[in-house]
């Protein structure tokens, strides 16, 4: 019995050692990023590991004075909000049809949509660039909204079709008997039940859309259309030798994501695993 307890104690300690070491490797680089952004250049070199002597926001003040960071932030919020809304609305409508109506080419259409799950949109960049120039959306965040929406639709269709198929079709029939139109069934019966799945679709797309760097790098030229990731890269180049400022740029780019993740973590983890379990 004693042996048993000793073994349990040993296992527990080893578990904690592993988890602790892993937690440290996650948090320490992020900790370095934040504290360095609060230091003066002198302090960064004389005491790189310690906490700053006093709270020094000079780097942040310089960043906001020399760049239009508020604008970049608004651009990123706009691109993300509009893309996620379009993904959810468009995918939900298509998913309802794919889940509920038998018609020729239904399976082909479904496959065509789901194929997008493994097609990296970056591989179409050359043609997309030509298209954006032709459409007059080059150097505008509209181009980013279009590619991000296209990128998110496959997962939306995949997950939402599955969800709608789980809603018993007796509900549809009951509504039909009560005189509800076919489209009305979607809006009044299905949509309210779909809310958690719609939120999951939006959440799964939040990270890739917010963090997208490749398309802004290629599509965006003017300062006024920059998003946060593109601005981060350009400011990094601009301030390269001013370490405090560089870390302020990195911290500003990360904190909104970190906070929204921690706030919504429970939902995040649930939504993201949907794909794995269904797949």
């Amino acid at each position, binding site marked *: 019995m004693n042996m048993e307890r000793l073994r349990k104690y040993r296992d*527990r300690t080893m*578990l904690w050692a592993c*988890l602790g070491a*892993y*937690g440290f*490797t*996650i*948090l320490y*680089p992020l900790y*370095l990023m934040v504290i360095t952004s609060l230091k003066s250049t002198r302090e960064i*070199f004389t005491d*790189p590991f310690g906490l700053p002597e006093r709270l020094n926001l000079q780097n942040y003040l310089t960043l906001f004075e020399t760049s239009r960071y508020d604008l970049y932030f608004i651009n990123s919020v706009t691109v993300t909000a509009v893309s996620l809304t379009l993904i959810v609305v*468009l*995918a939900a*409508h*298509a998913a309802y*049809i794919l889940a509920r*109506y038998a*018609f020729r080419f239904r*399976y082909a*259409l479904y496959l*065509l949509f789901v194929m997008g799950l*493994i*097609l990296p*949109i*970056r*591989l*179409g*960049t*050359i*043609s*997309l*660039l030509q*298209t954006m120039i032709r459409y007059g959306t080059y150097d505008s965040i509209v181009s980013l909204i279009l590619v991000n929406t*296209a990128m998110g*639709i*496959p997962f939306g269709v995949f997950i939402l079709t599955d969800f709608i198929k789980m809603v018993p*079709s007796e509900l549809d029939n009951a509504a*039909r008997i009560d005189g509800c139109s*076919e489209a009305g069934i979607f809006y009044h019966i299905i949509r309210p039940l779909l809310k958690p799945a719609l939120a999951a679709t939006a959440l799964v797309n939040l*990270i890739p859309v917010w*963090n997208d760097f*490749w398309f802004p790098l*290629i599509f965006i030229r003017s300062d006024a259309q920059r998003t946060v*990731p593109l601005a*981060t*890269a350009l400011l990094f180049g601009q301030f390269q030798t001013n*370490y405090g400022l560089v870390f302020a740029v*990195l911290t500003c780019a*990360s904190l909104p*994501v*970190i906070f929204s*993740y*921690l706030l919504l973590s429970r939902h*995040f*983890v649930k939504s*993201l695993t949907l794909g*794995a*379990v269904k*797949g």
Partner: protein
Amino acid sequence: MNHTTSIPGTRSVWPMIALFTVPAFLIYGRFLLLPIIQSIGVSFYSGPGMNPSEFVGFDNYRNLFTRAPYNVRFWNALRNNLIFFAIVMVIQNAFGFFMAVLLTRPGKGVHTMRILSFLPTTLSVIVVGFLFNMILNPTWGIFNEMLRIIGLEQFIHPWLGDPKTALPIVSIAVSWQFLGESILFYTAGIDSISPEILEAGKIDGVSFFQEIWHLILPSLVPIIGIVTIMIFVGDFTQFDIVYAMTTTRGNPAYGTDIFGSLFYRAAFQSPSRGGWGLGMGATVSTIMSLMVFLGVSFWLFIFNRQKKRFFQD
């Protein structure tokens, strides 16, 4: 369970079917499917500017495989990308699986660690790249300083400046960021193993490693497949990490140049900075599409043969 297109007593539902599916398909088709196909088309053309117009058949491919300087850059990127993929895959699968086993043990704090493990994945890749770039930066030298403090002075090294270490370091940075994703998938897999199986194992008195080998691992095979194919597709289109850590040239001496950075330079930069024109750029991206296609087909063949049909209802 499925309804036919005309439900008794109602009008045809065709207009609604079209109205509901066309907008989604239009955006998806026009800005994802079609561009990938059209980019393949561009790879058969040559010429300056935005619309290469001279049809050259497979010449671009011939140049890419056999003519300097194209072939040098191409085979180098292929080699680097394979090494990059191999390192990331081993780290993410091995550590991801190991951590997932620990994170599915009952215990306080485990839940917090699960949430924490995914945190780096939420960051933008360029932020992570710049962060490690700074930490490994030889001028500031904070990583080397850490080594000195813990008494490992003999390991002090210009990590991103040495062609031998740069690529492994970039691979480790990517693994650091996306380990949380593997953990997420593996914990989901372990959580969905029926508790009776693990309970039965406990009653039979299996050891920790027997439990992993005989009870957990077999039911995770499909997840290993999903994680690996996600890493494969991600790594063969990866660009941001190279941009942030070793620039678009894949320094030092193209030691970290992978397909993503080669594609970017070839297609979108001026000739003085490594640009080859859109036709050659499209050739590189077509090869990338081909690699992804082969990888995914292989995965479907190996892991999904017994997958359930979608419309069995």
